[in-house]
């Protein structure tokens, strides 16, 4: 559904460098990274708000450079800042911008607004940030988009709506025809719904891979400081010694089938002899340990993904 090839974009003292990844139909991809890692810039470059210096972006095999109109017709865009007219009401905005979309359905928009409790008669600038976000989501859902690109959509949303939003996202991809690229710091949402995880750092992609593979690739070890420190350096991504409990993210020696030094390591024996506990890391824990460890021992690049 989305293919990004060798995308480069320089923004004075920041640059997106050689970004390549793809998101197949019917899947949700979480785009994660620390602040200023380039997530928002990447999204704005994908949707052509920023001019890219080089590279290609395809939406459902349609080139953004060659046929932006067709490509954008397929896109439902939700950004962390309001791009719509603040002096118009939500309904006026939807009517005005909706007419440019081939399949915009005003009734669908109003139905979503009622469901999200968005006051469609109020000027956008009078709505709270959460309400503005809900307006954007309602609008993105009302023109039969097949690829949704969302930048921090849940940042200003209440817990109840976040749960509803998660359900909506899952419903959207259920037919296997729609895809979602979701940039967020709310990694618990991604734990629930993401199929792929793309991690960015300093304008580069560290990795872009299937979430399950990613989760299998690493193990979170928990135990006392002495045992954690006994783990060999070559398998540890980052270790953190706490007052009561220490933890370390390690490369899973049982992952993959290559006979390198990591794969030869007897993790089961070590776990038992050192009295450690093996845990499956969450995305938040993965990101925390990887960032803290400066991506030491993190295999970069792309995991093989299903064909588009």
């Amino acid at each position, binding site marked *: 559904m989305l293919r990004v090839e060798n995308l480069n974009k320089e923004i004075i003292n920041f640059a997106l460098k050689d970004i390549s990844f793809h998101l197949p139909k019917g899947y949700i991809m979480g785009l994660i990274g620390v602040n200023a890692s380039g997530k928002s810039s990447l999204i704005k470059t994908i949707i052509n708000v920023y*001019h890219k210096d080089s590279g290609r972006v395809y939406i459902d095999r349609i080139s953004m450079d060659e046929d932006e109109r067709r490509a*954008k017709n397929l896109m439902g865009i939700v950004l962390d800042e309001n791009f719509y007219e603040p002096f118009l009401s939500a309904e006026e905005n939807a009517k005005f911008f909706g007419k*440019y979309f081939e399949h915009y359905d005003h009734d669908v928009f109003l139905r979503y607004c009622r469901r999200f409790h968005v006051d469609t008669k109020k000027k956008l600038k009078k709505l709270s940030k959460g309400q503005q976000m809900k307006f954007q989501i309602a609008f993105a859902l009302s023109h039969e988009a097949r690829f949704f690109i969302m930048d921090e959509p849940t940042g200003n949303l209440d817990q109840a709506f976040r749960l509803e939003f998660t359900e909506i996202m899952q419903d959207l991809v259920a037919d296997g025809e729609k895809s979602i690229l979701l940039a967020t710091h709310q990694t618990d949402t991604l734990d629930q719904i993401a199929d792929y995880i793309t991690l960015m750092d300093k304008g580069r992609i560290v990795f872009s891979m299937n979430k399950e593979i990613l989760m299998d690739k690493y193990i979170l070890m928990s135990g006392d400081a002495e045992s954690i420190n006994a783990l060999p350096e070559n398998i540890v991504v980052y270790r953190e010694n706490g007052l009561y409990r220490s933890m370390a993210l390690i490369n899973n020696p049982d992952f993959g089938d290559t006979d390198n030094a990591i794969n030869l390591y007897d993790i089961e024996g070590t776990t038992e002899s050192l009295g450690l506990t093996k845990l499956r890391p969450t995305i938040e824990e993965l990101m925390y340990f990887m960032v803290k460890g400066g991506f030491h021992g993190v295999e970069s690049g792309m995991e093989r993904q299903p064909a588009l």
Partner: protein
Amino acid sequence: MWKVVWKDSLRFEGNAIFTSPYVPILHYLYLYNIMYSRSVLQAIIWIFFYIVFFSLTFFPVRLAKGMYLCPLTTDDRKKYIMTACYLRFGMLTTLYGLVLVISGIFLEVNNINIFLKFISGSFMIFYLVIFSIGIFSDPMETAKRRYYTKHKLPYPSKAAAKNPAVNEQGKKTEIVSAVIMGTAILPGFIGVMLPINKTAFNPYYLFYYIPSFIVSFICSIIFYVKYMDGIINASANREIFEAKNVKAGVFHAD
């Protein structure tokens, strides 16, 4: 739709600071024109020029940000911008025409000249007041920072300044800016020192000639001496922004 188009044509971008180096040229040309010309036509042209200049300075035509999320081609966006331009031009022309018609009805032909000069003088003094406030309350560095923040652009660091492309662009614009400033300062000073043409003297002129001379003279001195570096930097930055398709992640028409 027209609501949005009209709003677009009045989108305040706070970039008045970038046109500042060119204002003294306009100002001095205006003074010369008013001092030595008694032509109604020239006064009309000048007033219209002022209106358009201020309008574009304070409210440049920009495309609504939401349009970048819509399925539009480059040509569509260009058409949209042009519509906003035509609307602005049409509105200004209509407004200006109304002023002329009303002044024509209520004033004698001879008085139209004075009336138009009065309007021009008001514009000029209005601008100089704004300009003076700007100088004392909003230092160039702050204005630049605000511009960068508003556009969510990373503020150029020393590392960015070392970028050869940025430096090269900066050097070119420094030369251009220096030439422009020289062109503005020299005739300006000479103009201020020249006596007012006795044949054109009218007691009414005291209301705008003398304050204009004094204010513009002081402003020019303060502005150019204290903020010369700022002008050069701002001008250089503007040039960099104009090459935004390559250098910066800002919005674009195409």
